[in-house]
């Protein structure tokens, strides 16, 4: 099967399209660096004991006048090596993004399948819900869910559950595109004769949806998943930027950007630039790859 993939038209096109190829490579590099952050970086930025306040505000690739340390991307206000912090922050960004996308995908695909296949008033209810939710910007929805969840939880749990709540809130705000697309594809597949054959065997709706319809709509889901992944990462960054996301002791890229913003005009440009640039590269590579994937998987263009 692996060999089948490498011989396929998809892979052949992938090799020959520079945009797809390079964006995938960039994404791969960023992800691998984030995964192996503890091996690559000189020190862990989240351990307060390793920090030296005197290291603060060191520009990139310059020797700190007090301690003599050199930092690849400079340090932030608390003396954290920016390079390490970015890599660790990437871990959080990628983890939250991935989990959120999985949540919204599962929810959206399930609701879309049911709405499309069963139809009737269930379809109407689900789609009206979707319509209502989509009128609000997803950031707002995420903040709302986040705020409500945080408010409902006891104070001592708030800190630990931060990331989980973040994942749930972003996940719940992004299910609509999945549901709509899946519903559309389901409506098309439902009329095809192989579904009628399955009905003639007396299979239940659930079995037909999972065994027959689902495998045929996955390609459209994949495209939305890549785009939502990038969106989830940016949403998380935005929430952290606004101070609503991850706690400041475990900064993600968004937090770093917020910190950097404060110091931009006092001259310490690197604290803003490097995290922002990393975020840009990450989101851009995912989006470009998703665009290519969408064009490749679009049956109408064949």
């Amino acid at each position, binding site marked *: 099967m692996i060999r089948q993939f490498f011989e396929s038209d998809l892979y052949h096109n992938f090799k020959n399209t520079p945009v797809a190829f390079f964006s995938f490579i960039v994404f791969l590099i960023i992800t691998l660096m984030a995964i192996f952050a503890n091996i690559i970086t000189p020190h862990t930025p989240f351990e307060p004991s390793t920090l030296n306040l005197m290291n603060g505000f060191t520009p990139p690739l310059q020797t700190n006048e007090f301690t003599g340390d050199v930092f690849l991307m400079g340090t932030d206000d608390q003396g954290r090596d920016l390079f390490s912090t970015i890599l660790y922050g990437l871990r959080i960004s990628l983890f939250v993004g991935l989990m959120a996308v999985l949540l919204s995908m599962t929810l959206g695909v399930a609701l879309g399948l049911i709405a499309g296949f069963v139809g009737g008033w269930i379809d109407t209810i689900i789609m009206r819900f979707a319509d209502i939710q989509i009128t609000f910007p997803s950031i707002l929805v995420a903040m709302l869910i986040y705020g409500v969840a945080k408010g409902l939880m006891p104070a001592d749990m708030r800190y630990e559950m931060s990331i989980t709540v973040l994942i749930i809130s972003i996940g719940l705000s992004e299910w609509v595109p999945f549901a709509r697309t899946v519903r559309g594809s389901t409506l098309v597949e439902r009329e095809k*004769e*192989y579904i*009628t*054959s*399955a009905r*003639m*065997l*007396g299979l239940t709706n659930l079995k037909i949806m999972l065994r027959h319809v689902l*495998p*045929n709509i996955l390609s459209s889901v994949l495209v939305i998943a890549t785009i939502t992944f990038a969106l989830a990462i940016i949403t998380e960054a935005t929430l952290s930027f606004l101070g609503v996301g991850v706690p400041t002791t475990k900064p993600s890229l968004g937090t770093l950007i917020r910190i950097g913003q404060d110091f931009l005009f006092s001259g310490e440009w690197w604290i803003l630039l490097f995290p922002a640039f990393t975020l840009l590269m990450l989101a851009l590579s995912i989006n470009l790859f998703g665009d290519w994937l969408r064009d490749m998987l679009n049956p109408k263009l064949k």
Partner: protein
Amino acid sequence: MLVVRKQNWCNMSFLTASRLSRNFDLSEPWILRKIKGQPKKLLKAVDNASFLVERGQTYALVGESGSGKSTIAMMVAGLLKPSSGTVTINGDNFFEPSQNKIKRIAMRKSVQMIFQSPYASLNPRWRVGDILKEPIVTFNLIEDENDQNRHACELLEQVGLFSKDMSKFPHEFSGGQRQRICIARALACKPEIIICDEPTSALDVSVQAQVLNLLKDLQREFSLTYLFISHDLAVVSTMANKIGVLKQGILVEEATPYKLFSYPEHDYTKMLLSAAPDISKPY
């Protein structure tokens, strides 16, 4: 007396459609309708159609688009409930309220269908082997997996394909081959009736000949009963023991092929015969 006679009549025929009707509601939403004071707008897709099919015979339903032939097929298949009238197979009715579950499953097993489009008839993501095994597994016909595989291979060979085709996907086959796979799938659970809904309309002439001949051979071998739906009188003439002509939901004429072609009675039948492009007509 009348009751006894009617019973005998029913028992003689294997598949009976009795005063079958199906309406589709095309009216506007309830509120608008009430405001405008309009009655319900119903489309009579099938209007009081009755026909009998003997076991082992082929009954053909011929008509143009909108004649209701596909709707009748759906009702015989047990997928669409008639608005009035009944379909009975060997005395059993799909939509009988007192039907118990076992009976209904047995009925599903005894009626299978093959369709017009070879491209949409097979799940593109399933391998042929799994497609063929699905009916076997669903009806619990064979327990052992190796036996299931062997049965599926036999089915493929019966329709002129090969056991190595088990692991392939539908898109690796041509239209005619796909239609054969559909036929193999229909045979998998050993049905008694196969509804053929325009099975060769999307196929080339030479492939059509192969598929029609195959259907004939299988009918003889397995004593199958066919309900053959088509718009093409020429195709139907090679298959049918009896032909029913449908016009806008009404069965206007029913006769053996010889009689229908030689002495058509209804004007619509005559029109169909004269309009059909026929290779033997001189130009």
